[in-house]
């Protein structure tokens, strides 16, 4: 009896020991990631906030605290205002075209048919290439002299525009290039979502005589709203952060007509070495991204509820 009892308590003790050991291993397992993460990501974010209240630059190692000076300067900064407007233009042009095209492609390629694997791969290929290759390649195609597009236009005796040298066209071209690069990714997300829609919804609808278009409008679209929403937020965040395309296509030009947020940060911080002011612009970018992410999480929770 006593032996049995003793066995039990030692088992319990053993169990507690294991739990204690477990917790120790738990901390040990997360430590490298957590410490690295705090040093490499959290601390720099805080530092960016701190720098944005100083006049730190390459020349001034001992920066002065200047309070809200940088933010006041932002309000009056014409280039910053244009940068914001151009980033907005980029976003507004990209989102609807991206959404419509990727939905159409997903509908087209969701069902298996002969060659559909090839077409999917073709659409996905630009996703894998780097923005630099993609940007440089399209700069070559959009050249005014000897660019592929203008050469083809010339074959029809049409004088092509000065694409990337045109103030009005630089941003739309960046949008077009980004659009083509990103279609494949969103298409695959939508195909996944569409295949998850229960097949019997469609069967019931077609029994009731609904056309394919009606089925798409009243069954497919409502069922995949969470994915649509996700893609919209993702694409918005992506277009706030756009840089590589613009840098390699038009290099911000002509003038400042294709400056976007990250490009302006890059210019301020690493061409002018005005770290304080550049940090203030970074903080703006950060706040916008955080806002969008919070909206995404909030609405996603609603949709999870809705899915139930």
């Amino acid at each position: 009896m006593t032996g049995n009892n003793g066995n039990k308590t030692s088992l319990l003790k053993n169990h507690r020991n294991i739990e204690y050991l477990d917790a120790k291993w738990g901390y040990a397992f997360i430590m490298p990631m957590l410490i690295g993460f705090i040093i490499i990501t959290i601390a720099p974010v805080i530092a960016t906030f701190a720098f944005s209240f100083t006049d730190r630059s390459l020349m001034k190692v001992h920066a002065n605290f200047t309070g809200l000076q940088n933010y006041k300067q932002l309000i009056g900064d014409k280039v910053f205002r244009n940068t914001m407007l151009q980033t907005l233009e980029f976003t507004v042009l990209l989102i609807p075209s991206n959404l419509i095209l990727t939905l159409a492609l997903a509908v087209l390629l969701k069902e298996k048919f002969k060659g559909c694997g090839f077409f999917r791969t073709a659409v996905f290929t630009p996703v894998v290439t780097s923005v630099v290759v993609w940007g440089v390649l399209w700069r070559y195609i959009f050249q005014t002299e000897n660019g592929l597009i203008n050469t083809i236009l010339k074959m029809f005796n049409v004088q092509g525009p000065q694409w990337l040298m045109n103030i009005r066209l630089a941003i739309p071209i960046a949008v077009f290039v980004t659009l083509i690069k990103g279609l494949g990714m969103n298409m695959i997300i939508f195909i996944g979502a569409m295949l998850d829609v229960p097949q019997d919804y469609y069967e019931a609808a077609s029994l009731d005589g609904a056309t394919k278009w009606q089925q798409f409008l009243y069954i497919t679209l409502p069922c995949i709203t969470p994915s649509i929403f996700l893609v919209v937020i993702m694409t918005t965040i992506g277009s706030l952060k756009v840089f590589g395309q613009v840098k390699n296509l038009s290099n911000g030009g002509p003038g400042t007509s294709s400056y976007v947020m990250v490009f302006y940060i890059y210019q301020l911080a690493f061409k002018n070495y005005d770290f304080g002011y550049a940090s203030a612009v970074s903080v703006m970018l950060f706040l916008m991204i955080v806002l969008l992410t919070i909206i995404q999480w909030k609405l996603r929770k609603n949709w999870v509820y809705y899915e139930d």
Partner: protein
Amino acid sequence: MKTEEKNNIPAADGFNIQNENARKRKIFLKALKYIVCIIVSVIMLFPMYWMLTTSFKTPMNVAKFPPQWWPNPWTLANYTEIFYKHPFSKYLWNSLYIAALVTLGVVVFSSLAGYAFAKIKFKGNNVLFMIILCGMMMPIEVTIIPIYIALSGMQLADRHIGLIICPIFGYCGAFGTFLMRQFFMTVPDELIQSAKIDGATQPKIFVHIILPMAVSSIATLIIFTFLQSWNDYLLPLVLLSSSDKYTLPIGLSLLSNEDGMKWELVMAAATFSTLPILVVFYLCQNKFMASLSMSGLKG
């Protein structure tokens, strides 16, 4: 016999015509589908084709009018030039080993952390995980100024260490931790419990039981991370300043902005830096597509 009988009924005739129409409509729709698909594919792939063929053209033929759709004569001179006059083989090596180290680091640290967050009870588990989750939305664009200042203060800016450490403990690592935790949540507790009863410690459980189960998730993580590092642009652009340290994207970007730059040369460099990834992509395209769209579904 039966079909003959049916054909004799007048009403069935109408049915047949309708059927015929439906069949025609179907063929028409199918043809339309193929035509649209082919047009889309051409728009997607033609730039790549143009890049590839231009890289084999002689300087004379690049600016030809009407354009030369197929190189004639073919030349390898552009490739020899990017290897001998420009250190593109060096860039390739830099890109390759940096991406390999980043991938290794991310896989090791985030599968460890992901497992602990998913399956080990300890105080602060959820709060600490939330901190890392928040990191997924903090882009390098926002943290790059302090990172640059800190690294150049330590004389480490023009080294590869920043390019290796920053993704591991930044966006890639945070996403990896999230992804691995998601997977490890699906592992049944009983499995770990029974291993514990057999006297296995956590490291043993992790190496012998958990890791072999996670092969597919790890493959996803490898594809995502490798590609991210291979195509990384802003960070190396800001950090690196001596040309023997450059990675492929930086080398290419610089070559294309040189004075008197030659397009056939730039296209050879572009082809050279895309081809390795494209070959791997075409070999395992389904895994690629699934992995990368999953990385879009984060958060």
